[in-house]
């Protein structure tokens, strides 16, 4: 339902570790239903930003999803507000089957009475997710035996059954083949119909094909923001990525 589509609104977000400021006053808006790519050199603060949004690290400022403030809540409460994330390394439960992984992801709101009973059959939302992520034939296989790309899809499937309305994906296509990247991109487009998606990614080809909007982070700050074309044309971005502005008439840069 479209009324469940919310945007992400970050205001003046700061995260410091022992005096080092990893995220330094970031403000950004992600429109409902957007596929926003976060890019930037290593250490730009991309993952830390996601960590702050999901409650893993302490931050100041404000992060709102829809009209709910996220900062200050514990991780599992933020998750229950519809914020789901994946990690750079796959974190599926390897000793459990694909079906069990999805069933657990679907169950955070289950009562103890339900938890203490055995699962019978496959819940509808899990069956649906199995189809969407293309693992229907592998429901009973151990997650640990999946190929790398399949694990990443399982992670995304877990976010779907978790009913996350905001998906924060940390390098979802790292290590994937071309075919797998295409499939992942198609998956993102499909899920963004009723969800807001934020992707951290280094793969520029993937970004050009699937990003709707892009935010470039550099040294904990927003360097540039806009469509792919706008960001690509931004001389400051070229400076950061290539070491010098392609256009000689460059704007002055902060170090």
């Amino acid at each position, binding site marked *: *339902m479209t009324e469940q589509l919310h945007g992400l609104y970050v205001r003046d977000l700061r995260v410091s570790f022992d005096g080092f400021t990893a995220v330094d006053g970031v403000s950004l808006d992600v429109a409902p239903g957007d596929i926003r790519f976060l890019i930037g050199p290593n250490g730009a603060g991309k993952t830390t930003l996601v960590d702050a949004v*999901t409650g893993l690290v302490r931050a100041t400022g404000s992060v709102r999803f829809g009209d709910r403030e996220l900062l200050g809540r*514990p*991780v*599992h409460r933020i*998750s*229950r507000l519809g914020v*789901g*994330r994946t*990690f750079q390394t796959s*974190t*599926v*439960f390897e*000793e*459990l*089957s694909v079906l*069990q*992984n999805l*069933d*657990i*992801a679907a*169950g*955070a*709101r*289950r009562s103890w009475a*339900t*938890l*203490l*009973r*055995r*699962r*019978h059959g496959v819940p509808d*939302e899990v069956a*649906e997710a199995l*189809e*969407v*992520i*293309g*693992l*229907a*034939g*592998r429901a*009973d*296989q*151990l997650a*640990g*035996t999946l190929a790398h790309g399949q694990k990443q*899809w399982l992670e995304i499937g*877990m976010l*779907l059954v*978790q*009913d996350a309305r905001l998906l924060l994906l940390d390098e979802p296509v790292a290590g994937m083949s071309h075919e*797998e990247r295409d*499939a992942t991109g*198609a*998956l993102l487009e*499909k*899920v963004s*119909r*009723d969800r807001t998606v934020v992707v951290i990614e280094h793969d520029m080809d993937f970004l050009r094909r699937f990003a709707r909007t892009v935010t470039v982070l550099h040294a904990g700050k927003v360097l540039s923001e806009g469509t792919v074309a706008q960001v690509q044309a931004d001389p400051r971005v070229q400076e950061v990525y290539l070491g010098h502005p392609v256009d000689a008439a460059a704007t002055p840069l902060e170090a």
Partner: protein
Amino acid sequence: MTTVARDPVTADPVPPPEKPAAGPSRHRYRAAVGFAFGAALLFAVAPLLLSDFRLSLLAKYLCVAMVAVGIGLAWGRGGMLALGQGVFFGLGGYAMAMHLKLADAGPGAMPDFMLLYGQLDELPLWWRPFASPWFALPATVLLPMAVAFVLGSLVFRRRVRGAYFAILSQALAAAMVILLIGQQGTTGGTNGLTDIQGFFGYDLDDPVNQRMVYFIIAGTLLALLALARHLMQSRYGELLVAVRDGEERVRFLGYDPATVKLVAYVVAAGMAGLAGALFVPAVGIISPALIGIVPSIEFVIGVAVGGRATLLGPVLGAVAVAWARTALSERFPGTWTYLQGLLFVVVVAFLPGGLASLIGLARRRDDGERPGLLRRLRRRAAEVSP
């Protein structure tokens, strides 16, 4: 509602796994057969074959096995290395022994050791409720569960885990022993509560009554196994394994892992308490030496040897280790400690899944829930070779 198309985004090039998982009916059938077999073994074969003396030893081992069932749940499935289960075993044991001592002494009288140490004019206040079986019997289970609840609530929310949790639980066992020994006048000190004569009106010296105690213990163990099996196969059991393997990930799915762990820990404590309570009529004594650090570790060794993540592994391991201990220390006194240490090291180093992973008692393997030993070895070999 989510509106997602039904067509798969990705073509799946590999065929689905060749072996479909066993259906619930087959599960249940096999479990029923297993339980019938276990019951026949415990209720018919063992009493027929074993002498009274051996049968009372078996009763003792089965009490250890009850503790093991709980550790299998908390450690094997939940990843909490509970190195201090002696505390809960002891709480249950002392609660039962206090009641039996008071019953032995008769209404209004004081237990013999209190008169012996002679400093008390009347029964201490905290002993009094244990005169009633209606208080003492539930207390054998609820007291350990309550202590585990308080401890677990404090510890799991603060994200104490791994070795820190193990050390903490062990420190608790040490503290409890020190407390018991220090309060000799009211706890019997190092001697513990000894020379228990009767069990709800039945004379424990009578072999017939000893058999009755054995049957109660065997029945209780089967009931605890059924409970553990149900928990492991419920959604909660799956969630518990998920917490064991990825506590942070579970948090990001919207669960509070502390609550999930707490439940398994409290259930394990209740099982240990019940085991301690039944240990008392079977053996006739409870003392600090039976519940301290060393016995706490021995509980865990049996579980590790048998296979901590399986249902039957902990039980068989606990019985086997306890039996080996008796058999070997009868013949070669003094060597058992070394053998036990060696056994633990060998199992942890070479057979982390315990004996269950060797002899195929791990039924999970057949269900495709877990790769078989061969496949795991092959995978490990593949990792090692360049």
